[in-house]
């Protein structure tokens, strides 16, 4: 356990030293501010580009438009940023050989992997919370009506999805070689899942669903109970990826 805490601390220091923590926090606040503003200003921007004699009727933006922007930013750009920030944590150290000394001194490999995962999840959680608080503050000021359904469950769905993405990065990093191996393989896996999500029957079994139903949950057109299976599958996949990556990592030649 002592090794675990020490390694988590090292991870945090590393993320701070490489500016990655600050970048992620800045992007989180940026998304939080940008999303409601974009939703609110979109009609103004569109009408300022209006051509002579053409009138575009745009309905008054609502709080749902703000959350649509928020979740769209996070599922698209956010996932990409997460991949870039955490994609190299294990792959990079493996290809540079900085872990060899620590492992030779008796630090178990599973401790390295798990503490890297836990550190990444903590950082992601802090960034996500920061983004939501900023987003909420802006939304309350910009929109008169801010009541939505299932807000926390909807946020939780995206949170657990990104936790799954991070576990995917860990697994990919133990499989693929090179300092960008983990990044490329996990991005590839996400693309495959995105293609599978076109099939309606696979929806319930695909973790990517958790990153696409968020606004439907807020509107109440999707129910919480309809997603328990998807959430359970995602949690199982997280555990599965972590166990698989530990097993592969234990056998890997460094």
């Amino acid at each position, binding site marked *: 356990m002592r090794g675990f805490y020490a390694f988590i601390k090292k991870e945090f220091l590393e993320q701070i030293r*490489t*500016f*990655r923590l*600050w*970048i992620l926090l*800045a*992007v989180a*606040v*940026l998304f939080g*501010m*940008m999303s409601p*503003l974009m939703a*609110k*200003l979109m009609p*103004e921007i569109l*009408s*300022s580009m209006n051509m002579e004699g053409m009138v575009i009727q745009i309905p008054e933006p609502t709080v749902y438009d703000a959350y649509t922007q928020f979740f769209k930013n996070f599922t698209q*750009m956010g996932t990409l*940023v997460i991949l*870039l*920030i955490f*994609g*190299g944590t294990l792959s*990079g150290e493996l290809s*540079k050989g900085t872990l060899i000394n620590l492992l030779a001194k008796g630090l178990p490999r599973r401790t390295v992997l798990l503490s890297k995962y836990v550190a990444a999840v903590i950082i992601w959680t802090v960034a996500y919370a920061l983004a939501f608080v900023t987003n909420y503050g*802006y939304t309350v*000021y*910009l929109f008169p009506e801010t009541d939505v359904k299932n807000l926390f469950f909807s946020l939780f769905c995206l949170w657990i999805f990104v936790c799954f993405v991070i576990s995917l990065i860990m697994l990919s990093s133990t499989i693929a070689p090179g300092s*960008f191996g983990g990044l490329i393989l996990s991005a590839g896996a996400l693309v495959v899942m995105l293609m599978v999500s076109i099939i309606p029957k696979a929806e319930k079994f695909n973790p990517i669903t958790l990153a696409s139903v968020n606004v439907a949950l807020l509107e109440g057109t999707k129910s919480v109970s309809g997603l328990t299976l998807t959430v359970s599958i995602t949690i199982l996949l997280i555990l599965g990826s972590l166990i698989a990556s530990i097993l592969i990592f234990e056998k890997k030649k460094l």
Partner: protein
Amino acid sequence: MENMDSLMQYLPFLIPLVILQLALMLAALVHLLKHNKYRFGNRVLWVIVVAVFGFVGPILYFTVGRSEE
């Protein structure tokens, strides 16, 4: 003109957004001008990327462009 006025009304909301974007860009520019080595590409390329692509540029620089040394 009417549109400009309604945009002005959101200025207090826009200012922090712009400041944060500029801060990210400046941090990346300062770092890349102080360092000579990049994982790939050269200084000109990274200055363009950081200056042109909004907040995506600095993210790319700090995650894949910045040298590990």
